[in-house]
């Protein structure tokens, strides 16, 4: 019944199918049939993955879902069950180690999450209950509770504002941590609610939770005794979001509507999923190849075994009879166990130790990021932070960079730079001694020695002082240095300048401050009159008659004031494009040059115009404005019409340039990233104009860049349906950027020519949602791919007015596009969290907007400028290191196992190991693990300085270049070549096993030991050949592990070990060394194995551009270094 009536009242919102009803303060309402306390989730935030109880099974399950772990488990079980040539300990121990370490690591991370959740959930809040304020833990807030929030506190859940301590029933909030907009937003209380919240009897009906931050629809029914319930509509202006901060308002009361995981912030927060690096995918691919090799080896051996055994007398010669058990075994079962035995024998080809080494490399390697003093920011006294070490190498593979604007590219700190009055330039000088000498300041800066007339100057400055909606902050002494996230507090040290301003746009504050620097100070608005102090320290008063508000379509705003002398003046400021047509042309020409120059320098320019209104004109305008404001229908249109009418035939006084201060070295960083072949996309929730000028300032867009715009404005230009226009524009842009563009070579050699026309693309949130979720009827499924193609051919893309989830959507779209490029997101606020989580690599900036981004990022750095070193130097090196590590591991195990495989052909396919069990186990753990680990931590094939100076070097490893099938094949062939060489070289030597000068012979264990010695030395020396950067650690580890091998072999063969069943190696090594032939064959084989590598290195050097660069680079960069120090 009630609903029907409401629907009658507010017709046309049948779309809302599902809604929730909230009883404010849990008080039953008379109109409802029965009070059923509805069930909503509590206000607890849960981001952790495990509990104590499910940790073990869940974690184990997740770990064994990795194919490698599962494979090792299978091998281990086979070894336990079947009679195999090696003991289960050899594979069980490393597996256990890996599993335990990983579990501990993940458990610790989850514990940290638990702790963070606890902190949030136990945060004390004040809830009004039965007329009393009760302190509660944040997690205990229920939907319907009335919550009290004081200044500078964040809202614990989504609230409907009921009461504010401010007189005008408003409150200010910043949503910086939600959407990155750091200005103060005004929110309104629900009109006509009772002052006494205790007696308020109301229900709120609102939509079910949804993630869009800017949308909220609801209505409130206020029941008063013996009255028809009043209905108030609720919009986003009444909703205070969890995560936003209350500003400049002492205290507010609100009723909780969405709590816990249903708040808009939580809905915008995506679960953290395990990120896998591209290298890991390559490893898995290689793993499959090796698994195939392994299985085929086992199959070949098993088959040949049974073929061989079928010959007379070979299966069971008289000297080698089977046990009774073996004889009884069913032949197919025996075949199967034989197959498994071969698998176990060759399983070292896929070593557990590789995973351990990779994990260790990543873990230890990430310390270099933390330790890097270049990442240390003296301001916040912190360095870089590594949250995931799994992605180190991914930093060297980034193709797309998605960056947030506010707080990331810019400091969101507007600063007045200069103005231009009547064509003369006045650059602001920071020198305060010249405060009064406004006329003097321009002298040294401006080449033009002339100045505009004093009248003009003062007029211009008055315009700046009057034409705005800035409020002066009622600054108590304690509030001067209070938390000003948006940097509104003046940075000047003069007490006079400490005045705080609050405005919806930081530009306005900057302009007012700019005027202040030139001697005109805005003192505030009192009783509809604006007070300014002029240069002579006299206070001037102006009556504020009308404010013609800013809107993005008009792109200007005006005020109409009346001075004491009775003049009625209209001051207008706005974008050049919207001002120029409304002023006299001859004035425009003088100023246009300045405006354009400033714009290309990345400043935000505004033009200031004025107009003196005659009493008649004013009367007309006044009447028009009043009529329009009172209009009930089409109020907006009517207002617009009047505005447009009033703001005509003005005269231009000047222009201003305001700098949205970029982060340190933002432009250089962006340039370096683009030079490294990365595409930079700016995703921001901010306005298009602001974002565009930032892009210019960062040199993402350059003067020659042609901008392709796809925004609501361009869509509505044609006056046709949006969809049609969108279709048309998309096709048009596609033709321009994709079809007409010269074909771009794929891969590393992507042309980086400045000769071609460069394109920049701009799209806004609304249009994006049209592109992403087109209406099903049109042939619009192609939009997405068209859009992607255009974007891929643009040097830079700007997406403005994005909701956090839209940012993630974009990242996801690019991530899943053809070639699945590696994406990186960088941001500093909670609004960036979703995109940070979505991208392959998420970087958080330890900015001022809280720690949300940092917590959810994979890496956190203090400043944007650090991104350059992180990617170009660290990323590059990590990638090269790990790629080499992976290839090397597969290679060394291939030439380790290949002789063992070949040996099967000469031992009757009996799974006889060539090497002793100790060697089998120790090979990967001790003899060859440390050098590669040291290499993969310390290698710098190109000096860091050179990497930083030459961003193009980054392109050489793009697209996973070192882990493609080509290099993999090279390593595999090398491994096979060396394996063959080891085995057959020693075999030819053993054609006469009398190798000692006393005529005594060597047996099979000597054979294996010689092969193994050659193997260990070759594999280690191969790494030594590849090492371009020999620190003492490399020396120590490489020579040390060789020495250790020799020492161990002596030791192992020097004692009769009581715990061993067989003393296979007893004095085998020592005897081997006493044989000159063995020495000679070892030296020969090592040299021969390394010969192709040396040759390739020598011959490749002059040819490939890559190698030449390196050859040229190394000595050069060191010379360079020496000069510096």
């Amino acid at each position, binding site marked *: 019944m009630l609903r029907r009536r409401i629907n009658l009242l507010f017709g046309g919102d049948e779309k809302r199918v599902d809604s929730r009803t909230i009883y404010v303060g849990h008080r039953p309402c008379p109109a409802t049939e029965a009070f059923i306390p509805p069930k909503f989730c509590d206000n607890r935030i849960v981001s952790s993955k495990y509990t104590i109880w499910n940790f073990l099974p869940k974690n184990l399950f997740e770990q064994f879902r990795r194919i490698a772990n599962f494979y090792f488990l299978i091998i281990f079980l086979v070894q336990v069950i079947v009679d195999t040539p090696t003991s289960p300990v050899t594979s069980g121990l490393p597996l256990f180690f890996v599993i335990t370490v990983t579990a501990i690591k993940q458990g610790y991370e989850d514990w940290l999450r638990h702790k963070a959740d606890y902190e949030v959930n136990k945060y004390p809040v004040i809830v009004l209950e039965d007329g009393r304020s009760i302190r509660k833990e944040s997690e205990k807030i229920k939907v319907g509770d009335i919550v009290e929030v004081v200044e500078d506190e964040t809202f614990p859940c989504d609230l409907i504002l009921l009461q504010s301590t401010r007189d005008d029933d408003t409150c200010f909030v910043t949503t910086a941590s939600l959407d990155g907009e750091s200005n103060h937003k005004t929110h309104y209380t629900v009109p006509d609610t009772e002052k006494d919240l205790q007696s308020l009897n109301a229900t709120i009906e609102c939509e079910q939770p949804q993630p869009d931050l800017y949308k909220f629809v609801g209505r409130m029914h206020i029941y008063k005794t013996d009255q028809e319930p009043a209905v108030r509509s609720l919009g986003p202006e009444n909703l205070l979001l969890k995560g936003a901060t209350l500003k400049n308002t002492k205290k507010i009361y609100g009723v909780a509507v969405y709590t816990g995981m249903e708040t808009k912030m939580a809905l915008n927060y995506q679960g953290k999923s395990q990120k896998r690096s591209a290298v890991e995918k390559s490893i898995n691919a290689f793993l499959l190849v090796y698994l195939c090799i392994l299985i085929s080896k086992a199959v070949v051996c098993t088959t040949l075994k049974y073929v061989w055994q079928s010959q007379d007398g070979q299966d069971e010669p008289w000297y080698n009879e089977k046990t009774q058990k073996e004889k009884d075994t069913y032949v197919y079962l025996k075949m199967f166990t034989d197959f498994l035995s071969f698998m176990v024998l060759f399983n070292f080809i896929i070593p557990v130790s590789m995973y351990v080494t990779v994990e260790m490399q990543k873990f230890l390697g990430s310390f270099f990021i933390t330790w890097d003093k270049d990442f240390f920011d003296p301001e916040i006294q912190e360095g870089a932070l590594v949250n995931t070490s799994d992605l180190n190498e991914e930093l060297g593979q980034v193709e797309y960079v998605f960056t947030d604007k506010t707080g990331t590219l810019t400091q969101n700190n507007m600063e007045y730079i200069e103005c231009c009055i009547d064509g003369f330039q006045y650059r602001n000088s920071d020198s305060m001694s010249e405060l009064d000498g406004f006329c003097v300041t321009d002298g040294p800066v401006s080449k033009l020695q002339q100045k505009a007339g004093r009248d003009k100057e003062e007029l211009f400055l008055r315009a700046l002082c009057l034409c705005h909606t800035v409020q002066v902050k009622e600054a108590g002494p304690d509030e001067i240095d209070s938390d000003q996230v948006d940097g509104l507090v003046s940075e000047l040290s003069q007490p006079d300048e400490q005045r705080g301003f609050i405005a919806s746009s930081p530009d306005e504050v900057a302009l007012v401050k700019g005027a202040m620097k030139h001697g005109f100070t805005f003192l505030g608005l009192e009783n509809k009159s604006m007070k300014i102090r002029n240069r002579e320290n006299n206070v001037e008063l102006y009556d504020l008659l009308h404010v013609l508000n800013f809107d993005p379509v008009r792109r200007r705003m005006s005020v109409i004031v009346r001075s004491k002398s009775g003049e009625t003046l209209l001051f207008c400021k706005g974008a050049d494009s919207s001002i120029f047509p409304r002023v006299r042309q001859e004035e425009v020409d003088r100023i246009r040059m300045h405006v354009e120059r400033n714009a290309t320098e990345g400043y935000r320019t505004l033009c200031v115009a004025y107009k003196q209104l005659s009493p008649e004109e004013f009367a007309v305008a006044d009447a028009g404005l009043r009529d329009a404001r009172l209009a009930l229908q089409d109020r907006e249109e009517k207002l617009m019409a009047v505005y447009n009418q009033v703001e005509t035939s003005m005269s231009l006084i000047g222009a201003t340039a305001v700098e949205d201060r970029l982060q340190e070295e933002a432009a250089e960083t962006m340039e370096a990233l683009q030079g490294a072949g990365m595409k930079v996309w700016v995703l921001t929730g901010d306005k298009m104009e602001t974002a565009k000028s930032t892009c210019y300032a960062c040199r993402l867009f350059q003067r020659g860049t042609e901008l392709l715009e796809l925004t609501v404005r361009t869509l509505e230009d044609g006056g046709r349906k949006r969809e049609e226009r969108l279709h048309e524009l998309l096709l048009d842009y596609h033709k321009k950027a994709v079809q007409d563009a010269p074909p771009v070579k794929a891969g590393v050699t992507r042309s980086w020519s400045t000769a071609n026309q460069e394109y920049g693309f701009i799209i806004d949130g609304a249009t994006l949602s049209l592109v992403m979720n087109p209406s099903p009827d049109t042939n619009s499924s192609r939009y997405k791919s068209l859009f992607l193609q255009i974007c891929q051919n643009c040097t830079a893309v700007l997406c403005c007015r994005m909701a956090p989830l839209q940012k993630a959507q974009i990242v996801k779209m690019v991530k899943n596009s053809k070639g699945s490029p590696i994406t990186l997101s960088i941001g500093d606020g909670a609004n960036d969290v979703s995109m940070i989580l979505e991208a392959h690599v998420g970087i958080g900036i330890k900015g001022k907007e809280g720690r949300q981004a940092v917590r959810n990022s994979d890496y956190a750095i203090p400043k944007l400028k650090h991104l350059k070193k992180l990617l170009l130097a660290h990323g590059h090196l990590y990638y090269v290191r790990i790629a080499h590590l992976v290839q090397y591991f597969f290679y060394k195990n291939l030439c380790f196992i290949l002789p063992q495989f070949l040996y099967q052909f000469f031992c009757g396919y009996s799974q006889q190991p060539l090497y002793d069990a100790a060697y089998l186990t120790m090979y990967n753990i001790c003899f060859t693990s440390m050098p590669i680990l040291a290499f993969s931590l310390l290698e710098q094939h190109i000096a860091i300085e050179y990497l930083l100076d030459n961003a193009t070097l980054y392109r050489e490893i793009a697209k996973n270049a070192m882990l493609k099938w080509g290099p993999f094949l090279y390593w595999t062939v090398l491994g096979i070549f060396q394996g063959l060489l080891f085995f057959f070289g020693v075999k*030819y030597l053993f054609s006469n096993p009398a190798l000692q000068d006393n*005529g005594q012979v060597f047996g099979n264990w000597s054979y294996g030991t010689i092969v193994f010695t050659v193997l260990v030395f070759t594999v280690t020396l191969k790494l030594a050949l590849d090492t371009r950067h020999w620190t003492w650690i490399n020396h120590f580890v490489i020579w040390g592990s060789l020495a250790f091998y020799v020492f161990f072999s002596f030791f192992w063969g020097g004692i009769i070990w009581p715990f061993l069943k067989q003393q296979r190696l007893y004095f085998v090594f020592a005897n081997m060394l006493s044989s000159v032939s063995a020495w000679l064959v070892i030296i020969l084989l090592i040299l021969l194995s390394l010969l192709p590598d040396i040759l390739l290195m020598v011959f490749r050097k*002059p040819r490939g551009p890559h190698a030449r660069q390196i050859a040229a680079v190394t000595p050069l960069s060191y010379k360079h270094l020496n000069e510096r120090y």
Partner: protein
Amino acid sequence: MMASSYTAKEEDGHHSGSAAAGGPGSSKSKKPDNTAFKQQRLPAWQPILTAGTVLPAFFVIGLIFIPIGIGLFVTSNNIREFEIDYTGVDTNSPCNRCSQTYSWNISCTCSVPFSLEQPFESNVFMYYGLSNFYQNHRRYVKSRDDSQLNGDKSSLTNPSKECEPYRISEKKPIAPCGAIANSLFNDTLELYYIYPNGSRTLIPLVKKGIAWWTDKHVKFRNPPGNNDNLTITFQDTTKPVNWHKPVYELDPNDPDNNGFINEDFIVWMRTAALPTFRKLYRIIQKNKDNMTPTLPRGNYSLEIAYNYPVRSFDGRKRMILSTISWMGGKNPFLGIAYITVGSVCFFLGVVLLIIHHKYGNRNNNADIPN
């Protein structure tokens, strides 16, 4: 050999602006340490391999390897080696009868005449060789009990399970147990020199010094007990099924070569690497006077007590006489390999020299225009 630049990257003594701006606060613990290691600035040696630098290395390798190879080749060629197959597969061969009417119990003898074209100087080593005998089969290799062989009392009476099915015979533990021991090579070879006048003389064969010293003295040991009377020591055990006599009768005349420390036995227990192998059997000491060769050229006769069946698995038995050099027995492989590798390196050196000379004159990095 390599162009190398040993540049000590110095400890970063220069203070960047940011560090200085940190002021006193920068000494806080959170600031990363400015050590060479943590900043990845460890002094490093940066070898650069170019055609010019590797060039001498190739020549040096070539110049070293070729002489070594020639030396090895000559040495190997100077080694006298004589090999005779006495399996008796061929119906004409003297051992054909023995090889066919084989039985473990009846001893069969045959004699194979041969002549040496060249005299054998210095010590001559006598080997027996087996072919297609898989001493390296896994089931075979592991079928032994090293602690039993090391004289462990408990293993003597309770051999390891690995020895199956050669562990227990007639309810007594086998000593030495296992397939390897069981299949001990038991042909007896004797060598006669046939004078031109038809009379023959037995050439003395030394049966000690054929096993590794460490094996003989440490790894293999008779069980503790009465050393003179091994019969008592081994009384609770039985001989391996294929053996004619128990282990304590392997060499009853020499207590130092009897039981587990019998050298023939030890040599056999060292399993061969490949299915075709040779094992040292006896040593023919050179004559004391040093005037006449150990084995002068002429006719010889090899007398064989043919006990060891190999035809069932298509095996072959050989007797090999060989002299030994410092590099061991005759094996041309090493010499040829060294000469080849040395030549290849030398050749590559020449090629590199040409490249270097032609293109690398102006610039140290050979800059080949493409």
